[in-house]
């Protein structure tokens, strides 16, 4: 099977401090992979390496079978918040990035705004948007182009319960309908349980455990037990 993302034995350090240590990861089409870990686990660094924003010290990363430098155009990302211009409307923000990435077909822009539920607010300036609306616009921007991989770093930050629920539905729809491979990072496990097919637990730059959603529920009866199980697997890896 061809994987959308392959990370093999990757190591990364910043100023002699190890951030990632011998990390391996594979992502298939239509799969939602949750990266779980606390602050400093290396989740964001791993996402940045996959997009080619920064380079690993050793190991290999393949994005769509090639180096991220060549294929990053097909990877949408939402890392550390949406990059939107407050003085422009939602539609103009999408049109700006669409022009930048070479995808400014009006029908597609309309489709994307409909997918994220912002078509009715398209002429509203983004400075008047709620955090959740900005996050959804950020996802619409991330989906511009022929996206095969979507990388979402802590996308639930700042969202209320309704916003989280909407975003979870959206992510699942993107993976199921468009067969986009999604990597989503969060330190809030309960959010990931509703949307992920597989989980990769990270601690201090190392992958400590990996299992599918089904495997979690072999050891847990409900969401609370599933969360406790994952926490135990994360905390027990000292």
């Amino acid at each position: 099977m061809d994987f959308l993302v392959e990370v093999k034995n990757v190591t990364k350090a910043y100023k002699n401090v190890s951030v990632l240590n011998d990390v391996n990861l594979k992502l298939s089409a239509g799969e939602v992979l949750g990266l779980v870990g606390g602050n400093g686990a290396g989740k964001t660094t791993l996402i940045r390496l996959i997009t080619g924003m920064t380079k690993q010290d050793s190991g290999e990363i393949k994005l769509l079978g090639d180096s991220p430098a060549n294929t990053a155009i097909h990877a949408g990302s939402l890392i550390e918040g949406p990059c939107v211009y407050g003085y422009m409307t939602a539609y103009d923000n999408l049109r700006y990035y669409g022009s930048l990435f070479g995808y400014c077909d009006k029908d597609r822009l309309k489709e994307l705004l409909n997918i994220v539920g912002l078509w009715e607010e398209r002429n509203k300036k983004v400075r008047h948007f709620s955090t959740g609306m900005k996050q959804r616009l950020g996802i619409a921007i991330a989906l511009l182009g022929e996206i095969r991989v979507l990388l979402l770093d802590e996308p639930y930050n700042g969202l209320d319960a309704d916003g989280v629920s909407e975003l979870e539905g959206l992510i699942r729809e993107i993976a199921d309908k468009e067969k986009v491979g999604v990597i989503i990072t969060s330190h809030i496990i309960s959010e990931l349980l509703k949307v992920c097919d597989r989980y990769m637990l990270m601690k201090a730059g190392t992958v400590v455990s990996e299992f599918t959603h089904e495997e979690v529920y072999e050891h847990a009866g409900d969401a609370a037990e599933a969360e406790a199980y994952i926490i135990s697997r994360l905390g027990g890896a000292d």
Partner: protein
Amino acid sequence: MKNFIRASNIKLLKSSAVRIGCVVLFAIASLGNLIFYGALKILTGDIIEKAGGYDTDMDAFRDINMLDAGAIALSLMQVLSLVIAIVVTVHIANEKRNGVYSFISARGYSRFHIYADKLYESTIMSFVMYLSYTAGAVLSGAFFWHGDITGEMILGFIIMFITVALLYIAAGYIFTAIAINIKSGGAAIAINIVIVVIFSALVTIVDKSLWEDKIVLRSWWLFSAIEQYAYLEMTIKEIFIVLANAVIYGLGAAFAGGKIYAKSEMK
């Protein structure tokens, strides 16, 4: 790059900072001429001559036309330099803070593309704001004076307009090079303001100390050259000096800024 230019045009057309900058500069130029007109009506020739210090050419104040007024306004342009510095720097600082460059880089675009795009945006912003200031100066000058205008004056004004425009575009490249490479937006604004105000003052002090009545260093410091050469009868030598300033400072800043940016870690 075509994609970047198209996208930048969308952004700049919507930019409230650029629009406000243009309105403010149009108003400042018009207000400047209003005050000047009022002062000429109120003040006597003796006072103007005393204010001038020595050998003040009173005819210069009695025989003004709209192009003279435009040129006079354009010679008092430190405020224009400051507004351009602030608008360009704030524009880049906001984009850095919002993670726009990291996001664009994550889509596979190089730092060269990003930097070249910023230079393009700075060119447009600097020129548009300069145009607004000039329009304010000339239109208000026409309202208050008009006067007799010859074809030679129009040609002189066009030459001056184009050469000084190049100086402002070069200034924009300096501001861009600093804004994109300095981590803190506040620090970048401060550095750009210091360059415009403090350095120019120092150059003037050194120039006057060493060469008294001659203008030597001020011809070769970009922000002083703007003020020195904004008049209608520029000689070929003076045009050359202005163009040399634009090339040295503009291309120098663009090159140096790009080199530093290419080597630094993406924020």
